């Protein structure tokens, strides 16, 4: 094939399809030139309104007739005007867009029409009114906040005033909680004393030692401690006193009652005072209870060490019973106080009788106590508390002092302090010496020549008495006990003393002798007897005294 191939190209139309109809016919946009398009858009701008105004002046009559239908809706005219304005704006914006797209022209700016004076003023008026309204709202807000703040301050002043007064006596601690309770600011009163804690002894702090400070209904400070949760220490002889001893801490209210009296301020402050005092008393009771628990705990530990003076005969929760010498049997218990005020009231008659001990109907119990020679249980309750407190406190002091010196040399010798032993021995001694006293009194009673004097020994396990015998000079034989004094008078020895000392349960008697035996004029101890058994004492002590008396005379 050598002939040239001819290729003919048809010019295809380069046009965007505008739409395709259902029957397949294609529709192309009308081929409008740009300039024509621009002109047509400009033509759309309708200046008819300008012409209309000119026509209006000519056509006044026609307008008058159509006035009655104008008042349908007063805003209708404004709406129509707005719609017409919207139309005109659309026309112009279309023109601007077309010009902008094709001629790479950007709109330089559109100037706002200059506001007319009345428009300026009305704008100013609106903004001023808004500002005034804002100020008024702000003023109202400030005044309301002032009132609310004042109320809150007054409420809290009572709370914080009470809290500060309590803080002078107790440790108040604060813990910022996670704001889960908005009403509680996390104040607690800490009643534990960390200096007394011995970590080696494994002593755990009581659950009572941290007390939460709450608000009551009137916003005042309130402390809620359930009635039965604190204890008091009881000590007594088994079987000899009824349960229920006088206790001054009965009627404590554990939360404020009726503090929402809207009375005068003096009345409120007086009742606030009273309330703070009540709270203080309640805290005192709880603090005492913590000490009682510590003491009982220490007693329990001591009980497991074998002691000479006591035998444990019973051990229960919060109750310990032991038998000491001389036929006495004691108990120490932790008694929950504040229990059932109604029951307390009915027992109050017996309580009074028990404490005073001098009302006739209850003499049976006391008489038995006196007959057996048992000392008053109150005094020994106090003594028990005292020795343990001194021991604990002294131990704490020593720990503080010697902490730096010997760190690890502290052995477990503190666990056996022997205090319970000492206490039981003291009590035994007291019972025994009461019996000795009874015998001495029976010897000396109704004899005018004998006088019995008891001496205080500042030792709980020692007692001493002296029996003085006054001999009338007429029976002293002449020349036996004379001494020549410088002024020639006769000095007769007319008083002889016998000293009786009881240590634990050993009696020793010292007596003066007549000069015959020793040959000296001064008093000297010549007889020393040790008596170990009580049975010997019953028979021997009066006999010994009488023997002494006779030796003085003979």
């Amino acid at each position: 094939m050598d002939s040239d191939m001819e290729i003919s190209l048809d010019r295809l139309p380069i046009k965007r399809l505008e739409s395709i109809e259902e029957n397949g016919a294609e529709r192309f946009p009308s081929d409008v030139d740009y300039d024509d398009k621009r002109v047509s858009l400009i033509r759309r701008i309708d200046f008819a309104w300008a012409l209309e105004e000119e026509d209006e002046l000519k056509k006044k009559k026609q307008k008058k007739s159509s006035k009655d239908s104008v008042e349908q809706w007063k805003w209708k005219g404004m709406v129509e005007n707005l719609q017409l304005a919207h139309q005109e704006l659309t026309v112009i914006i279309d023109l601007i867009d077309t010009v902008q797209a094709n001629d790479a022209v950007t709109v330089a700016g559109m100037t706002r029409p200059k506001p007319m004076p009345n428009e300026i003023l009305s704008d100013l008026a609106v903004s001023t009114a808004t500002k005034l309204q804002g100020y008024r709202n702000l003023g109202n807000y400030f005044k309301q906040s002032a009132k609310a703040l004042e109320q809150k301050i007054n409420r809290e002043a009572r709370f914080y005033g009470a809290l500060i007064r309590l803080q002078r006596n107790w440790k108040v601690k604060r813990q910022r909680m996670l704001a889960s309770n908005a009403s509680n600011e996390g104040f607690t009163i800490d009643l534990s004393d960390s200096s007394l804690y011995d970590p080696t002894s494994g002593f755990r702090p009581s659950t009572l030692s941290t007390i939460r400070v709450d608000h009551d209904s009137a916003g005042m400070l309130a402390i809620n401690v359930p009635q039965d949760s604190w204890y008091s220490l009881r000590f007594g002889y088994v079987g000899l006193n009824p349960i229920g001893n006088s206790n001054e801490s009965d009627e404590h209210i554990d939360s404020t009652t009726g503090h929402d009296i809207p009375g005068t301020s003096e009345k409120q402050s007086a009742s606030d005072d009273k309330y703070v005092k009540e709270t203080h008393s309640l805290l005192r009771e709880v603090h005492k209870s913590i000490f009682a628990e510590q003491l009982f705990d220490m007693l329990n530990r001591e009980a497991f060490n074998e002691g000479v003076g006591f035998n444990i005969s019973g051990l229960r929760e919060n109750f310990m019973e032991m038998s000491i010498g001389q036929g006495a049997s004691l108990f120490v218990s932790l008694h929950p106080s504040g229990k059932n005020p109604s029951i307390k009231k009915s027992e109050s008659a017996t309580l009074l009788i028990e404490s005073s001990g001098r009302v006739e109907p209850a003499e049976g119990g006391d008489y038995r106590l006196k007959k057996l020679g048992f000392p008053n249980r109150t005094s020994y309750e106090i003594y028990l508390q005292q020795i343990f407190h001194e021991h604990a406190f002294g131990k704490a002091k020593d720990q503080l002092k010697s902490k730096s010196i010997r760190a690890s040399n502290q052995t477990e010798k503190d666990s056996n302090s022997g205090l319970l032993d000492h206490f039981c021995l003291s009590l035994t001694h007291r019972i025994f010496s009461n019996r000795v006293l009874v015998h001495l009194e029976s010897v000396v009673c109704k004899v005018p020549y004998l006088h019995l004097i008891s001496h205080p020994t500042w030792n709980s396990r020692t007692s001493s008495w002296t029996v003085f015998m006054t001999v009338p000079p007429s029976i002293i034989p002449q020349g036996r006990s004379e001494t020549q004094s410088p002024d020639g008078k006769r000095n007769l020895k007319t008083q002889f003393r016998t000293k009786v000392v009881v240590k634990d349960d050993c009696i020793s008697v010292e007596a003066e002798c007549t000069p015959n035996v020793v040959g000296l004029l001064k008093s000297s101890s010549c007889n020393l007897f040790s008596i170990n058994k009580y049975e010997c004492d019953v028979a021997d002590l009066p006999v010994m005294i009488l023997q002494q008396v006779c030796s003085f005379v003979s």
Partner: protein
Amino acid sequence: MDPQTQNTSLQRLQNVENRVVKVLELAGGVMEELASPSGPKKEFVNSHCREFMQSMKDIQVTLREEIKSACEYRPFEKCDYNARIANEICFQKLEYVLTQLDDLKQTADQYPSSD
């Protein structure tokens, strides 16, 4: 002296709180005055604003002093709980002695006086 100063310190803080309330009231008053339709009275606004600024200064001074003195107080340095227990024991002793004395008195009263 310490409990006294604490008491007055509390009173001073209470005064500060009252002052804050007063300051708020002043602010509210000024705002309302500005919002009055007949225009604010100048001397009213001026006096209130002066009082406001003075109160703020006083509050600031008082609070600064209180904060400085509060930092000097170290709590729980000497815990007196031990002494408190010793005190309670002494109180029990006193009560006991009183009952004994009452007994003595009653016994003495039983015997007719020997005049």
